[in-house]
């Protein structure tokens, strides 16, 4: 994430401490003074790992410290599930099906394999979905269930790990 903070003593520590408070692990801190920047602020980029579901808490703590978050970079999507869909996948607007997942903001279709035997025959596709958390994945699968029902597609879900 890219942070903007006051260029005064103790500010960097103030920005870093909440990360350890929420159990995060700092991988890199990039701290550069840019000459064209108004001279009372400092830009810092931090690469970090966070346990699942702690990002909201960290954002809140940083705001309390008066640190402005300019940008939260690529959040790695940690959960991956593969489903198979069978039916008239193209004719029922595949891009809409994919978009229903991608537009959630918390899950995305990361891979799609299709096999189309002949025109008018049902095709089969394998769709890999990534999501940030287990709950988000469950929500994404729920969306696919709804879409499959609407479009009369057969959705084959993975058998969850027994736990």
């Amino acid at each position: 994430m890219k942070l903007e903070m006051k260029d005064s003593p103790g500010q960097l520590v103030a920005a870093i401490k909440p990360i350890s408070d929420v159990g995060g692990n700092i991988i890199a801190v990039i701290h550069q003074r840019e000459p064209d920047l108004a001279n009372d602020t400092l830009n810092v980029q931090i690469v970090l790992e966070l346990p699942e579901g702690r990002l909201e808490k960290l954002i809140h703590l940083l705001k309390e410290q008066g640190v402005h978050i300019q940008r939260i970079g690529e959040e790695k999507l940690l959960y991956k599930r593969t489903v198979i869909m069978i039916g008239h996948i193209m004719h029922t607007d595949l891009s809409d099906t994919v978009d229903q997942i991608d537009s959630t903001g918390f899950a995305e279709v990361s891979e799609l394999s299709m096999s189309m035997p002949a025109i008018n025959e049902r095709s089969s596709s394998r769709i890999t979905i990534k999501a940030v958390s287990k709950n988000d994945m469950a929500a994404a699968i729920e969306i696919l269930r709804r879409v499959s029902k609407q479009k009369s597609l057969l959705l084959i879900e993975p058998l969850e790990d027994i736990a």
Partner: protein
Amino acid sequence: MKIALLGLGSVGRGVAEMVAKKDLGFTITAVADSRSGCMDPGGIDIPALLAKKKKTGHCGDTGITAPDIVKKADYDVLVEVSPTNALTGEPSIGYIKTALARKKHVVTSNKGPISLACKELRTMAGRKGVALRYEATVAGAIPVMHVLEHGLAGNVILGLYGVLNGTCNYILTRMADEGLTYDQALLEAREMGYAEADPTYDVQGIDAAIKLVILANTIWDNGVKLSDVERTGIDLLTADALRLAEEEGCTIRLIAEAIPRNHVLRVSPRIIAKNHPLVVEGTLNALTLETDMAKEITLIGRGAGSVETASAIIGDLLYIREHYGKRA
């Protein structure tokens, strides 16, 4: 212990043969098939009866019917293995009630009565002080009821996952292994005698759902019905779908699952890792029980077959003799 046998199809024949062959101390005193019956309080000559059935299609006298036997014959245990009616459970429910009312134990392989009237029949048996046992209704030879009752006694059963229909498992195995289409695999299953002429019950997951209902009622006494099961069959699967699963080190199997904490009760084709214990070949059945102490236990075995199903029934008969010995 005297046994009245209702039904002389594949399962009934298996029971009769094993009782005749093994020295278990059982005497069959009455037998009925769909068109005839015979009674002999001194014990029926089983090999002669089976030979007659084979030759004439009748096991006895057309003047003696199944209801006559249930009501009047001299027996300790009614072994009810007549064909299943999944919609009404009749006439089997009536036979079972009549036997229980006479304070006779009942052992059945018949899914209809147990899935439709499990609670009522169990309560009735309890009131009459007799046993109602139905090991053979779920997963054929796999002793799942005995495991739940004894081996896992004291455990809380948190959920279960099973491959409970051998026909579907055979079709899916063949589609995965040989790249057959659904129709080709079904045709082959029919030729092998694994699928009925009308495969609807099997391929649309109804049979697996009925077994799931029996398990759920037995374990959690929750009164769920067939209509409560969310059900998807395998008849719309494509060979491509299996290939797409295969590319990921997975396959597709029809899985019945019940997880009360998540309100899940469903039968559906699922993507499953090929090295998962529930991925069994051919007509085999498999069942994973998730419990609080033992964690996961998976049982694998034959889900159908004449002698295989007789194994479950004989297990129930021996259980009854052991627990009600003086009377039975």
